[in-house]
């Protein structure tokens, strides 16, 4: 048994270490485009934000959604359509994508929270598939072609986003704001209630919390942040296609979160980095990505369910989850 003082000293040391890591991370993010290909980094940031948004639901509320592609890809469509066909500015397009994803999340969540556990997963999967069929048939998504050639435009009518560094720092800012929002949600009283639902739903009910409302709120927030990531991706890559609304995409974000560490703050971002890097490597090697993805899934579930960051936390004593 360690005495109270030692524990407190250890905790404050841990906190200092965490802040040091955050500072290093932000500095690295700002310096990265001078060393690495910016498009690749922006892709990673979009998927990392997507995975962190997904983790808000799986890691901190204990709800496994198998339909998050609907929010990611749906927001990309909304944003691309507004910017290209209505001539909106990029920030307005991204905002529309985020709000659209939130509304979609409200509808899907309303149905899905009526069941728990694996049923919840199956319902979200089915509803997302329904949205996929909608996207196949709706005229504004332009079917198999998708919305191509979306202009990046000028941020607030001032900053030219066709300049590589301008778009990079815009995406980095969105990424950091998104992560900060997730961090605030998780560490707020609201986030604590979400965790209590994850740990023991019945007890949370008996303590007087209307669990259904909290679950729905978490679902909508997660959907909105996933939408933020998807809409940003549409601006970066200048297109929105059916790929982003398929169930394979929903599976991919689960993989990123599982690989990095479910319920850890930065785990999903680490997982996203690894998965995107792996996909880029495999794309040139000819080895099918699907098989690699499936194998990593099986290995993660069988051998290290805590994920990479989770395993590191478990090894280092004194670091709180």
């Amino acid at each position, binding site marked *: 048994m360690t005495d109270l003082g030692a524990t407190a000293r250890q905790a404050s040391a841990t906190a200092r270490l965490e802040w040091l890591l955050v500072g290093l991370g932000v500095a690295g993010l700002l310096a990265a485009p001078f060393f690495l290909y910016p498009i690749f980094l922006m892709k990673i940031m979009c998927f990392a934000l997507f995975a962190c948004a997904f983790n808000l639901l799986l890691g901190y509320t204990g709800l*496994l959604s198998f339909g998050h592609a609907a929010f990611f890809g749906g927001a990309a469509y909304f944003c691309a359509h507004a910017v290209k066909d209505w001539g909106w500015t990029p920030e307005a397009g991204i905002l529309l994508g985020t709000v659209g994803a939130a509304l979609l999340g409200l509808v899907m969540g309303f*149905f899905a929270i*009526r*069941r*728990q*556990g*694996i*049923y919840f*997963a*199956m*319902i979200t*999967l*089915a*509803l997302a*598939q*329904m949205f996929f*069929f*909608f996207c196949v*048939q709706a005229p504004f998504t332009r079917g198999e072609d998708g919305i191509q050639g979306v202009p990046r435009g000028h941020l607030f009518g001032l900053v030219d986003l066709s300049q590589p560094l301008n778009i990079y720092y815009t995406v980095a800012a969105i990424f950091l704001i998104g992560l900060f929002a997730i961090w605030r949600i998780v560490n707020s009283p609201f986030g604590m209630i979400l965790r209590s639902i994850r740990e023991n739903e019945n007890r949370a009910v008996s303590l007087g919390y209307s669990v259904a409302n909290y679950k729905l709120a978490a679902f909508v927030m997660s959907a909105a942040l996933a939408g933020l990531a998807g809409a940003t991706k549409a601006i970066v890559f200048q297109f929105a296609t059916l790929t982003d609304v398929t*169930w394979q995409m929903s*599976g991919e974000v*689960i993989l990123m979160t*599982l690989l990095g560490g479910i319920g850890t703050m930065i785990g999903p971002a680490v997982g996203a980095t690894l998965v995107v890097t792996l996909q880029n490597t495999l794309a040139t090697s000819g080895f*099918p*990505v*699907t*098989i690699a*993805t*499936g*194998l*990593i*899934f*099986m290995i*993660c*579930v*069988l051998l290290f*369910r805590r994920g990479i960051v989770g395993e590191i936390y478990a090894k280092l004593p004194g670091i709180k989850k």
Partner: protein
Amino acid sequence: MIFGIPLQAFLGQLLVGLINGSFYAMLSLGLAVIFGMLKIINFAHGAQYMFGAFVGFLLLQWLNIGYWPALVLAPLVVGVVGMVVERTMLSRLYSLDPLYGLLFTFGLALVIEGVFRYCYGVSGQPYAAPDALSGGTNLGFMFLPNYRGWVVVSSLVVCLGTWLAIEKTKLGAYLRAATENPKLVQAFGVNVPVLLTLTYGLGSALAGLAGILAAPVYQVSPLMGSDLIIVVFAVVVVGGMGSILGAVITGYVLGLAEGLTKVFYPEASNIVVFVIMAIVLLVRPAGLFGKDA
């Protein structure tokens, strides 16, 4: 004429719906059997269905073994592979949250699908119906292709047979008992782990059988299972997995509903199952036959 639709076209779509319903019923039956015992949702069910169709196709290509032997061999191969997977990997996950089983079988489905996609591309391979079942019968009011009639009849027989085996035989009684209280059944000298392996094998074999039955109706393609499994999940949500008979009936009914939608409002035919699922969730969140919340 029915509601301004020619009777022929109406019955034709209804038959298509019945065929689809036969496959929904067989697949949701397999899912319900596996879920009942293992408490795992088998995401690989669609991939195993596709695997069954490919076993039939490859037996013909490589060994010139025709449809009838394949009807036995394909489920056998899929079932044995399933049992190996259960014994070596899946059995380690029983003590965990059931979500891990879902994620594991999802990965398994991706691997199976990826392998076939790598070897055979995404285009479908034709697989001819056996000579004995080619051609059709004129029923007076409609023309029924013999093979389709065979699919409906055999799926009914398989579903009823499985239900009887679980409800009326000694082995089925062990199965149901082990679902209720595995520890107690084990204490009575029944080897529960073997029972679990057999159950997963049986469920996988059912998917394989559905696959080989489907091979002459649809084309044999690596993607044939993945879109189907999502519809079957919706079927399972509607029916509730508590009851085997419920899963089967829901499968047929939703297949027919899909066929009817194709007649009256074709644009909605591929989402109608999901819409019904949403309505059922509003009215009866536990599912039509479900006991669990």
